[in-house]
């Protein structure tokens, strides 16, 4: 076998491996749609998405997932509001301000946070935060939007922080030097030069953090409370989409209407995370730096 044939064979072997993930993804999406689409023979897409009542086991059943969508969006948005400032500021501190020793420690602690199993965080929310919240604010239950959002935020912080950090490191040193040489302080340099130059990476970090939060199942199953109704306050319980799927899938007869409605929720979730990823991708291209100088 000569050298050229070897090269060609190697090329195709690698192609094969990279195709595996594409094919697997394709098959998963295919089965998701195959199992989920039949529900739309029973309810219209509009009634499914915007229906106010989720009573899949009643007779007659009603498959309105709007409360679940609202539940997912509310906990995700609140989690983002908590996680973005914390994550981005941690990234700024680590990449621009902290002395070497603190930098290393902080980085590994945040990475450790990313490695915590979500069920452990869920336990923490259930056993520690929920009772405390219930007593302190005199609530009917501590398993609610705020609790779930806080835990989701803790999960999203490592994603947001480490991707933002990479974006901040990628800001060319020349920009920083130019700013310092004009008599800017460190704070002024961070606000006026470093952050704007890293904004595309930071936006990507935020979108990916949100995608992580909206798809997270265990935490919302354990601490969001599970009430499939539109919440009236931040201390109400909600039932986000992943929690619904995880909680109900075990009890549904194979290929019943309830079964396919859960798959259809999966389709909605898939579309949402896909949208987040596409937006992240678009944003990072849109704001891409034109490099420093065109020599």
């Amino acid at each position, binding site marked *: 076998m000569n050298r050229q044939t070897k090269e060609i064979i190697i090329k195709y072997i690698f192609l094969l491996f990279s195709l595996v993930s594409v094919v697997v993804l394709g098959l998963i999406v295919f089965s998701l749609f195959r199992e989920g689409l039949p529900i739309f023979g029973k309810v219209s897409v509009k009634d499914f998405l915007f229906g106010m009542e989720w009573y899949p086991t009643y007779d007659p059943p009603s498959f309105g997932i709007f409360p679940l969508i609202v539940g997912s969006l509310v906990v995700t948005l609140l989690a983002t509001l908590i996680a973005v400032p914390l994550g981005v500021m941690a990234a700024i501190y680590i990449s621009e301000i902290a002395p070497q020793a603190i930098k290393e420690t902080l980085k590994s602690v945040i990475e450790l946070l990313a490695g915590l199993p979500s069920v452990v965080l869920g336990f923490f929310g259930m056993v520690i935060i929920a009772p405390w919240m219930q007593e302190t604010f005199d609530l009917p239950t501590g398993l609610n939007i705020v609790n779930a959002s806080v835990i989701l935020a803790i999960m999203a912080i490592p994603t947001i922080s480490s991707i933002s950090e990479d974006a901040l490191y990628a800001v060319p040193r020349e920009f920083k030097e130019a700013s310092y040489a004009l*008599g800017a*302080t460190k704070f002024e340099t961070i606000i006026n030069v470093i952050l704007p130059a890293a904004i595309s990476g930071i936006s990507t970090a935020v979108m990916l953090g949100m995608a992580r939060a909206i798809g997270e199942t265990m935490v919302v199953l354990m601490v969001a409370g599970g009430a499939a109704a539109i919440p009236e306050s931040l201390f109400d319980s909600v039932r986000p989409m992943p929690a619904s799927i995880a909680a109900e899938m075990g009890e549904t007869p194979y290929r019943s209407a309830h079964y396919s409605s859960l798959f259809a929720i999966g389709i909605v979730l898939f579309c949402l995370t896909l949208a987040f990823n596409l937006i992240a991708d678009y944003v990072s291209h849109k704001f891409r730096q034109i490099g420093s*100088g065109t020599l």
Partner: protein
Amino acid sequence: MESNTIIKLKDVNFYYGQSRALTDISMTFGKNKVTALIGPSGCGKSTLLRLLNRMNDLIDGTRVEGEILFEEKNIYAPDVDPVEIRRKIGMVFQKPNPFPKTIYNNIAYGPKLTGVNAGDLDTLVEQSLKQSVLWDEVKDVLNKSAMNLSGGQQQRLCIARALAMKPDVLLMDEPTSALDPISTAKIEELIEELKKDYTIIIVTHNMQQAARISDETAFFYIGNLIEYNKTEKIFTKPEVKQTEDYITGRFG
């Protein structure tokens, strides 16, 4: 010359961690003069330049000994704020490094930090761009990104940006080494013009450039100041053998 001194170095030693980059440098820089710092790579000339506006503070593990007097005050005294020093001693870098902002905002960046009000900014931007002979080329595109300019234009923009701070001294770290010959000629003309109002200290690898534009030239070798004299003298009758070897191209 003593009465016209703007910066004076007394026994300056500089260390990166354990290694010494500059050894016992004592020299003075004259007001409204162009002083060129020449020498082979790694001789410490850029390090010296960056000492003069405390840019080396930004590098971890560096240490300065001795005194650097700017207008008779030691800029390394504990009560001196490096930010103040950098406002009075501007710097232009080797690679043009405009901010990824509009041309206008590049110039306005420094003055805005010092609280120049918006009304005066327009005038200041125009004045600075005229000083750096860039105004005619960019006056219609002030709100376009500075990244679209050519390398030579970017470098003149960086000079304008430094001038907008109304500094006393302008430090230039090989400002033309990344530029084509025509842009280089424009920058050299500009330096000629600027020396009426500013003290210019320029590091250059290009000896013809040093000979063309400077009044005084200092030759450095491995962290030592070997010879410092009138440019004419250095390039025609150097006193030290090493200087002669360097400028005649025997090493470096």
